[in-house]
């Protein structure tokens, strides 16, 4: 009888808790590895242009340069991509291997891995240090919230979005943001090289 009661208690508690094992206690040493301000706290899963499933955590140990785009974009994105290329060309050759340049889709419906792949090939960005990522619409919204990137779908094919390039250090902490198109990227590059040297 007691067992039944206990089982019922546990059952009714489990009804009220929420998904994703929130209550699991992460061992202290493990949680120390990821700092409070790190994007590696985000549990979301992402898919690359090679259709590989990754968590952001797997990028740990690199300096990440991230921008949000969508491949059918005709206005700002080509310029954002050009800005990213310009940054890449100016990186310190010695530490470049520690840097990843990442383009995150704000239109995951259209931007399937296949589509990201062909976009990468077309733009000659289908190799290191370039990486394309997509996830669910909800994860994308959350990721944008972390980056303080605003976006809105304004028609079936078009989005409005802020033009922000963000730099994260080895630990996944935001260290620099450049806002705007075709802006002077001297400080951005400085930040990337400085962080990449530390690795």
């Amino acid at each position, binding site marked *: 009888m007691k067992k039944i009661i206990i089982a019922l208690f546990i059952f009714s508690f489990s009804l009220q808790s*929420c998904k994703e094992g929130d209550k699991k206690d992460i061992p202290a040493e493990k949680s120390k590895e990821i700092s409070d301000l790190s994007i590696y706290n985000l549990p979301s899963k992402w898919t690359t242009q090679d259709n590989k499933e990754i968590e952001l955590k797997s990028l740990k140990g690199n300096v990440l340069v991230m921008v949000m785009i969508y491949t059918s974009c005709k206005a700002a994105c080509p310029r954002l991509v050009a800005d990213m290329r310009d940054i890449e060309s100016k990186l310190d050759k010695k530490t470049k291997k520690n840097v990843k340049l990442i383009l995150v889709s704000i239109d995951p419906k259209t931007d399937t891995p296949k589509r990201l792949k062909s976009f990468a090939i077309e733009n000659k960005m289908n190799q290191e240090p370039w990486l394309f990522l997509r996830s669910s619409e909800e994860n994308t919204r959350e990721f944008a*919230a972390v980056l303080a990137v605003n976006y809105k779908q304004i028609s079936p094919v078009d989005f409005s979005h802020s033009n922000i390039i963000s730099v994260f250090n080895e630990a996944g902490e935001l260290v620099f943001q450049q806002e705007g198109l075709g802006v002077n990227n001297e400080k951005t590059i400085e930040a990337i090289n400085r962080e990449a040297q530390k690795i």
Partner: protein
Amino acid sequence: MKIHFFIITFFLMLSGFSRAQENGMVPVKEGTFVPLYGASSKKPVLVKSFYMDVYPVTNAEFLNFIKKNQQYSKSKIKGIFADKSYLSYWKSDFDFGNADSKSPVTSVSWFAAKKYCECQGKRLPTMDEWEYAAMADEKKVDARTKKEFNEYILSWYEKSKTYENKIGQTFKNYWGIYDMHGLVWEWTSDFNSIFLSGESRKDKSSDKNLFCGSASVNATDLMDYAAFMRYAFRGSLKAQYSTRNLGFRCASSTKPKL
């Protein structure tokens, strides 16, 4: 034996009741409206039928959530998910101090609000859903052109500390929802889809370098000053922010389970 059964029944009923209360939602019927911001070429936006919480989430309800999800408590929440003012008026992790248990919880970040709703099997309402439900007064689905309605909202903006009031003391709108105006501002799931720069005079022409395509998301009716205030406020938010007059409620696309 009998006592055991009593305990079990009592316990199950208790949890049943509290869940029923948590699930106090009403249906909002599908319809179209032209939002102040966000529609391209001022076309009406379709809002599909959904369910909305009757009241904003209270201090007591949020405390209950924190007890089960302690990583969202004042001292444990990660910096990436909330700034320093998170639950600033709470005395400690599990004590909301002098605040009323039936007052809306405020000073919560978007991440915490989002998680709360997920844990109830719900989600935050979209901005379109929120605005659609909020344009109703007691009798009409869309009361935005009514002078008294706008005056009511604007006069609330002038009052201070309404966040200390209890839920359910403003009017019950057409859908059966309370406190859309007159108590606290509320988070929406896509609050970060607004395009206003800090310099409001500049937004008439939109800043093309900061925002791609922002010209097409300009305001439709600048006479709706009350809504303009809400959009401007949302536009100034970041997901980590928490302010004393900003709370939230949840929505759902499907019928809430009891």
